[in-house]
């Protein structure tokens, strides 16, 4: 008789850790953004666009958004895994979610550097 140990696909720990690291990045960004807006309220278009033209805002925000998208992927995938039993439908949903998130990432960079 062959003794087989049941093991997982091994991406569990990596995703578990990634979910927490991205969460910490988002917490820090959120607090700093609220602080920045409290110190210098962007009352009109000129103030607002000047704020977002600062390189530190662009890079911090793109880092934040990439964390959002990776975090969203793990979260939505876990929800789909829990409730969608049909493998074909599950795969379809994964593809749609990944496709949407990749589009959002490209769009984010266009927004941040395109004005």
């Amino acid at each position: 008789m062959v003794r087989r140990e049941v093991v997982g696909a091994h991406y569990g720990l990596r995703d578990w850790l990634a979910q927490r690291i991205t969460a910490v990045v988002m917490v820090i960004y959120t607090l700093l953004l609220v602080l920045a807006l409290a110190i210098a309220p962007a009352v009109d278009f000129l103030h607002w666009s000047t704020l977002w033209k600062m390189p530190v805002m662009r890079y911090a925000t793109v880092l934040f958004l990439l964390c959002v998208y990776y975090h969203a992927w793990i979260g939505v995938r876990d929800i789909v895994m829990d409730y969608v039993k049909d493998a074909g439908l599950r795969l379809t949903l994964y593809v749609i979610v990944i496709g949407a998130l990749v589009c959002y990432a490209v769009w984010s960079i266009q927004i941040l550097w395109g004005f």
Partner: protein
Amino acid sequence: MTKPRPKHLNLLQIRLPLPGVISIMHRVFGAALFLAIPLLLYAMQSSLESPASFDALKNALAHPLAKLFLLGLAWAYLHHFCAGLRYLALDLDYGTDLAPARASAKAVVAVSLGLTLLFGVWIW
């Protein structure tokens, strides 16, 4: 021998304790936030494109229904934020006993609702 265990798979019969309630809210709000991403990106784009699109967005968001939507979104974000911080603490073995876990669940509800109220006051 298998013991007969009570099964309450009927959602209306399940009585979740508060940590369970905020856990399922964390999930539901997380999904809602995912669905809101394109709207928020569109708003961000409009706010930066030109003075005209900035003003158009400002006018659109002045509508009471838009404000209500923003308030709901803020609650989702703030709840997910606070509950997430609680999970990070639990992962580090802080507050894993029953009493502190229940107390921190209460704190998550109170703080996220309080901050949402603050946000509501700010936008109105």
